[in-house]
């Protein structure tokens, strides 16, 4: 079976397709997130003793933190596709992904700070991970700021795509620098974060919630992309032929009546 990918790279065919997919993603998102949290809250109670109850924050924290990083990768993917094939839709998806990525980063930071308060007794600890997410937030905000500062759509698409690529190249270096401020001793850090050490029961809840967050991200990204498509293609005929744009008969005749009385 051959799928014509370029057909879907056109905003015109993307718009209705995305419209159909969004409700499905919403249903999946709500079910998976509720399911994951239900599992986490009710099926793992016996594993955690009272001192470890705060572990429940992890479901939302880890899911949002993963999404914050993954969405950056997704954004760079679209940006790169845009720069290589010069497809307008790729740029639109890149900028639609950025905002959801920012929201996820903020959630990760906020829940991380609360997690810190419960486990280390302080909201902010300049922990390498939290710091990296703070910088990721700066990078996301820089991307959005650059995009909104440029009026010309084409330039703003390309310039922000290039910035996303530069960020991709530098974020690992920044991560390394934050992780090992002393280059001679950094191997010892962050062994505890590996998944193996997490109880498998908790892991299930975490993975299901994360999957739900993916669905949420798809849904919001597509919603935003649809808005961007509408804004950019407003002067085309296919947009004005859309059912949601068509002027209802009643309002039309009202206008006619109004113009008549005026003249």
């Amino acid at each position: 079976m051959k799928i014509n990918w370029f057909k879907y790279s056109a905003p015109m065919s993307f718009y209705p397709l995305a419209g159909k997919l969004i409700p499905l993603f919403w249903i999946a998102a709500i079910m998976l997130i509720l399911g994951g949290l239900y599992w986490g809250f009710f099926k793992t109670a016996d594993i955690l003793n009272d001192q470890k109850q705060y572990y429940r924050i992890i479901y939302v924290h880890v899911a949002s933190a993963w999404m914050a990083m993954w969405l950056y990768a997704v954004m760079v993917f679209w940006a790169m596709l845009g720069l290589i094939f010069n497809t307008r839709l790729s740029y639109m998806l890149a900028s639609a992904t950025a905002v959801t990525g920012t929201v996820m980063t903020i959630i990760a930071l906020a829940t991380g700070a609360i997690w810190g308060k419960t486990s280390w007794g302080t909201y902010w600890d300049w922990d390498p991970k939290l710091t990296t997410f703070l910088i990721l937030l700066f990078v996301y905000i820089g991307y959005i700021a650059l995009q909104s500062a440029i009026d010309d759509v084409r330039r703003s698409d390309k310039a922000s795509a290039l910035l996303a690529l530069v960020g991709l190249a530098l974020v690992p270096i920044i991560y390394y620098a934050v992780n090992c401020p002393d280059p001679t001793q950094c191997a010892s850090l962050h062994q505890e974060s590996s998944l193996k050490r997490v109880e498998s029961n908790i892991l299930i809840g975490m993975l299901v919630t994360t999957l739900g967050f993916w669905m949420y991200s798809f849904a919001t990204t597509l919603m935003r992309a649809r808005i961007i498509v509408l804004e950019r293609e407003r002067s085309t005929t296919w947009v004005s032929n859309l059912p949601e744009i068509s002027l209802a008969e009643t309002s039309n005749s009202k206008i006619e009546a109004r113009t008549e009385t005026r003249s």
Partner: protein
Amino acid sequence: MTSAFGTILKRDLLLALRRRSEIFTVLFFFIVVISLFPLGVGTEEKILQQMAPGVVWIAALLASTLALDRLFSADYEDGTLEKIVLSPSSLSMSVFAKILAHWLLTGLPLVLISPLLGLFYHLPMDSIFVMMFVLFIGTPVLSMLGAIAAALTLGLRGGGVLVSLLVLPLYIPVLVYGAGAISTSMITGVSIEPYVLLLLAFSLLSIVFSPWVTAAALKISLE
């Protein structure tokens, strides 16, 4: 090939010579920022010594972003940037010439003035030399990365603030290892070599890649 490089380098230095005030503005900004810290946090020798590496680097980051805004925008406004882009030689090399000139005019003076500031903060002699050296190998990264942001924000309203927003987070590795090297140099018996090597690596990487990325960014911004 090299003629455009030499021409642009010479031209930018000549222009700076005609307008010396711009160099001195950046330099004095650096000095003023560094002088304000002791007034804010107290003048105790211990505290100052401990703070000096970070303060010097942060002042250097701010001073270098301050000057970035003018890196390409002056040429953009009078049309000479188009001349450079349309010159039949490698745009990356031309861009490299511009960044090099920018570093010679804003980075190098900071390196040269830094011993004075070392004295403000009671740094030992060895640390002052270390500071000069790491500033010397670290500040080119600031100009190189900054050039990308300057090219991306070319001709935008409020471009100066935007440049800082884009570029300051990217400076973190240089800040971490640059300040780390100076701090380590005050501890006897610990080698600063790893820091220096990392800074050198950043410097070389940025010199290789930045002119190329900046050239691409300029082409996007000129459209």
